[in-house]
């Protein structure tokens, strides 16, 4: 039995209280709920419902990752727009949202970037309470190592811009780094000795899948329809405005269509006739066996093109730079693991006996300036939330909030004003390469 509330005015905005059980709105998670269900042996209700696909919605969001789901949630919660559908060709979070290395930070280089990512971090801080879902945000401290003078200069630049934006970042020396990360080789005997680091205490890690599921559950409770295994095969544009989409499960009329498909975004943008500067590169990652906790902070090295963190379960998660050529393949490669191992052992020689359990990759929609593309396009009603490259997961909440505002008010919010598609034609790029990725 499926209860279709239709997202009408009797849905409580901001609350997900309701009945549990078959087909009703999910019950509120709590310690009491956990105890009760555990003792009674009763099964848990579905986290979100399965609806029939309607033939029209007010807003269709293409892409069911953190960006698409957050946009749907904030449309419903902040603006009372509930007649929304999120479509994903696979399962929710099957793209970048399920493949990233789950690091949160706001220590960016430009004032626009700092303001933007810090708003996201602020939303992440109380996300578990807002969504009534444990997203496991663990504030660990984030270190970006500098191995040469120009790198150290960039760290000082970032620290100053961060401080002006009210973000806690400072440059620390090798002695202080060694105290924070005992296993790091901070001696002068390495090929690229560590000269200092940008230390950002508010940074940390999170359970990326939980963020996707939390937003999905909360959006569903507010009446949003989530349609998995539904591929958009075309976008109907008439006289310069969007009319709707064609999907593998039938057509949908919609005056607003939002592209939240990251690595696949060029395919969807092409359907609407919108050209973008996006290029899709694979980004690989790998994880080791779980060991006892020894690494508290997140450690990043731009020079060595590698970063590492330890999950709450004890596994080390490694990331590096994107593959050096475009591809839509999500397979890992041996040359990646070889390069990664070489660089991480430069940093932490003690890891040499650790066993790598698996590697994978996701698709990154890279832009020329390593900043996203958000807002309107020359096609009326067609919005972009793309160009997220290797820095998209941390921006999920602020992007959803801003895109929802852009759609609901039909005006571009100040916080994303510099990220419009038109900046490339005007030559007004927002250069964040140094702070966004560990690229070559």
């Amino acid at each position, binding site marked *: 039995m499926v209860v279709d509330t239709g997202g009408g005015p009797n849905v409580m905005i901001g609350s997900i209280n309701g009945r549990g059980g078959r087909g009703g709105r999910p019950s509120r998670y709590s310690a009491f709920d956990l105890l009760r269900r555990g003792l009674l042996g009763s099964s848990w209700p579905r986290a979100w419902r399965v609806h029939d696909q309607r033939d029209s919605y007010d807003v269709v969001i293409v892409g069911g990752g953190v960006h698409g789901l957050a946009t749907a949630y904030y449309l419903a919660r902040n603006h009372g727009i509930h007649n929304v559908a999120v479509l994903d060709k696979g399962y929710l979070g099957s793209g970048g949202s399920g493949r990233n290395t789950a690091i949160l930070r706001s220590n960016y280089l430009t004032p626009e970037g700092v303001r933007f990512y810090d708003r996201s971090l602020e939303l992440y801080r109380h996300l578990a309470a807002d969504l009534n879902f444990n997203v496991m945000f663990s504030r660990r401290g984030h270190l970006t190592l500098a191995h040469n003078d120009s790198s150290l200069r960039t760290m000082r630049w970032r620290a100053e811009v961060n401080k002006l934006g009210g973000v806690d970042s400072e440059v620390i020396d090798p002695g202080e780094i060694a105290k924070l990360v005992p296993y790091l080789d901070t001696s002068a005997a390495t090929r690229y000795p560590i000269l200092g680091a940008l230390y950002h205490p508010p940074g940390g890690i999170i359970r990326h899948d939980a963020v996707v599921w939390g937003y999905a559950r909360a959006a569903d409770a507010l009446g949003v329809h989530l349609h998995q295994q539904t591929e958009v095969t075309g976008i109907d544009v008439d006289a310069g405005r969007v009319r709707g989409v064609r999907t593998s499960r039938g057509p949908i009329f919609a005056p607003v269509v939002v592209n939240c498909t990251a690595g*696949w975004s*060029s*395919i969807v943008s092409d359907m609407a006739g919108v*050209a*973008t*500067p*996006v*290029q*899709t590169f694979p980004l690989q990652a790998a994880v080791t066996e779980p060991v006892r906790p020894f690494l508290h902070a997140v450690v990043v090295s731009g020079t060595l093109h590698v970063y590492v963190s330890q999950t709450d379960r004890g596994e080390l998660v490694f990331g590096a730079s994107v593959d*050096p*050529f*475009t*591809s*839509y*393949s999500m397979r890992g*490669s*041996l*040359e990646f693991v070889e390069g990664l191992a070489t660089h991480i052992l430069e940093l932490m020689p003690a890891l040499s006996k650790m066993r790598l359990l698996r590697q994978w990759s996701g698709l990154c929609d890279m832009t*020329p300036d390593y900043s996203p593309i958000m807002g309107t396009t020359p096609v009326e009603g067609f919005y972009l939330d793309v160009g997220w490259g290797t820095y998209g997961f941390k921006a999920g909440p602020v992007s959803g909030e801003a895109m929802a505002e852009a759609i609901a008010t039909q005006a571009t919010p100040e916080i994303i004003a510099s990220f419009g598609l038109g900046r*490339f*034609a*005007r*030559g007004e790029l927002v250069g964040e390469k140094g702070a966004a990725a560990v690229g070559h």
Partner: protein
Amino acid sequence: MIQLPCPWCGLRNVVEFRYVGESRPRPDPATTTPEQWREHLYIRANPRGQVLESWYHSAGCRRYLRLQRDTVSNQARPVEGAE
């Protein structure tokens, strides 16, 4: 490891090459507007499938070469021209 067919050296590992990018016609800098030039600089087709592109064989013959590659399977074949 993906291998690419260099027209002079034969099939070699991808790490021997540097990726240059999609082959696109270059407008005449003397007659284009800044907007048209930026479109050439930044806009990309980014296809999921066949793409015409150029590479540089940095660890081999050190020549520019053109390939037609499938961006999903990464199968590639040489194509006439350098870029």
